[in-house]
């Protein structure tokens, strides 16, 4: 079994699916000869040819809109947008095009499309390269939104996304692209979408996160364990549609929740999770729902970005606050 990083797992999943399904094609800026600015498509063009790993002109609306047309013909495009900060020109096509075609035509046409993009901060990248705006996609009916927090999940969830008959926004937490390696069998086994993963069982408090901040969340859980606080840690993995039952079960057990997100706090995915809990499991709660999040500020440039992001200490502080609540 190869031992791979998260980004290598992304490549592996695309490679696998391109090998077994000739309708799968990859397109985007610099995905071909260059193998992607992060190298997510490294080697794919050499192996699958220029017709299936396509360097496009520089235009994100075009990449998305073109993909809608291709998908409507039964192809399965995997479109790469270079950074989430550059998805905005494509947003029109994603929302008014991709998300709606099946519904608009009562199922006559559909859009089996994956739009991949790296997101999040912490790598000292230039301006507009570090944002986390997954909540914008999560509000749009017709889309699915997925983000992996480990190489194995990247592989399994991306396979699921490619095979999904509907548009999936696949968000890659670039800060952890190369953080850890994992042994993964390249066996084409997909993971289920709309399913949370319980990464650590615990009794005192439920920590919910996704993507790169799973890393800090698990570290916080470790630290807290040393202090005698037992955390259950959930990786939601599919941001939309959310698997709330898994979270509800945990909340019933622990009665306390802290949600960790890198995105700006207001209107983030964490707010939706908190709202669902306050609607459906309010009476299980024995403490306020904590949200550790990026501030409601514009992601600062490199020199200050670490202050913006949820660090381990912010998580442990919040958990202690929630634990101390009475």
């Amino acid at each position, binding site marked *: 079994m190869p031992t791979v990083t998260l980004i290598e797992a992304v490549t592996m999943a695309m490679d696998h699916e391109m090998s077994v399904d000739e309708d799968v*094609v990859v397109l985007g800026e610099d995905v071909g000869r260059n193998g992607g600015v992060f190298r997510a498509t490294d080697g794919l063009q050499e192996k699958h040819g220029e*017709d*299936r790993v396509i360097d*496009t*002109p520089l*235009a994100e*609306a*075009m990449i*998305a*809109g*073109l*993909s*809608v*047309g*291709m*998908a*409507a*013909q*039964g*192809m399965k495009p995997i479109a790469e947008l270079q950074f989430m900060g550059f998805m905005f020109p494509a947003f*029109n*096509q994603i929302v*008014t*095009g991709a998300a709606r*075609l*099946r*519904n*608009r*035509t*009562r*199922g*006559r*046409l*559909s859009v089996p499309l994956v739009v991949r993009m790296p997101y999040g901060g912490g790598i000292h990248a230039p301006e507009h390269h570090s944002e986390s705006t997954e909540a914008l996609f999560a509000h749009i*009916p*017709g889309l*699915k939104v997925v983000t992996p927090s480990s190489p194995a999940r990247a592989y399994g969830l991306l396979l699921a996304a490619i095979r*999904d*008959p*509907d548009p999936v926004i696949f968000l890659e937490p670039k800060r952890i692209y190369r953080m850890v390696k994992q042994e993964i069998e390249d066996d084409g086994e997909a993971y289920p979408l*709309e399913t949370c993963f319980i990464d650590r069982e615990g009794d005192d408090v439920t920590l919910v996160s996704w993507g790169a901040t799973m890393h800090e969340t698990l570290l916080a859980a470790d630290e807290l364990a040393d202090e005698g606080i037992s955390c259950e840690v959930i990786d939601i993995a599919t941001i939309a*549609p*959310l*698997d*709330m*039952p898994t979270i509800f079960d945990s909340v019933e057990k622990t009665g306390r929740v802290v949600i960790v997100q890198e995105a700006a706090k207001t209107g983030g995915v964490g707010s939706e999770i908190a709202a669902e809990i306050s609607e459906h499991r309010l009476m299980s709660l024995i403490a306020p729902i904590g949200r550790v999040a990026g501030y409601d500020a514009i992601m600062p440039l490199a020199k200050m970005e670490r202050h913006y992001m949820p660090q381990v200490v912010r998580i442990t502080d919040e958990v202690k606050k929630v634990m101390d609540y009475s």
Partner: protein
Amino acid sequence: MPTVASFEVSYLQYLDENSQAVNDLPDFAKDTNLLTGLYKDMLFARTLDYRAMSLQRMGKMGTYPGTLGQEAVGVGSGSCLGDDDVLVPYYRGSNTMIQHGVKPHELLLYWGGDERGSDFKNPRVRQDFPIAVPIATQCLHAAGVATAMKARGQTGRAVLTEIGEGGTSEGEFYEALNVAGVWNLPLVCVINNNQWAISVPAEMQTACETFAQKGIAAGIESLQVDGNDVIAVKDAVGRAMEKARSGGGPTLIEAICYRLCDHTTADDASRYDDPEAREEAWAKEPLKRLGDYLVNLGAVTKKQLEEFEVEAKEAVEKEVEIYFDTILNNPQPVGAMFDYLYAELPEKTKAQREEVIARDLRAREGG
């Protein structure tokens, strides 16, 4: 300074404003039966238009974008579509769509507010896109369909898309042409230059003397045609489609006509249109143009033209009946709101589907 590139935009017209042939007609136009067919199709278009507007006024349909004065653009272009071609229309594309095989009552359903109007039942148009309301988005979908055809080596197929002259100001229009150019896609894009984008006249959209020249920015063949002359439209689009089908790449065609109706039933063009300009435009309109030509030629009589009108009305009425029958006797169940969102409805959303169905039931049972 040496010249490193030069370009020309040409203009195609066969029948002039007085219905006189100004050029050698293309072969198809020597077949007067075929021309009579085109006339009837344009007449059907106009009849449907008037009927749809009256339905809207009676509160029996939603907002409707008429095609008065633009029948040659839609009918002429649409008549060039083959079984294997794909049409990616814009919201004023009714006539193009009908030419390819969309049922007129489907259009009534769509504009009447029923999604089933975009579930075209005719096998010939199952791959056609539904109407695009967000302007210029359709051009990229069309380029995508063309990309799929090319990737799969499907020569013999091509894509037709259309846009208003106002829509050419949107970046997505240009992005689509640009990629079509560089990838040599089997795509034909027709600009319906009806002089107006709602209230904004064409000369306020761009400094260009022609809309056709916008194709130069994409390095693709571009030309202008008289959009009131269905022969010119059909000839230009037909040749462009044939070129596209055989690997010759994309073409941009500007068809010049005049929007003789309000923008939609929600608009009142008298607020901004100049009555004189409109008067002038009426003199050039496409039905008169072709009708006079056929009468002058002796191919049809004036009396026959009147008979065609009766036939058209009958044909339209049949479509209106299907429309009414569908919305009154066979409305969509409310759960349909959820049934096509995804191939399979997410768990999270199932309760909402049940709620809307239960509420509807309760309301019907007289709650």
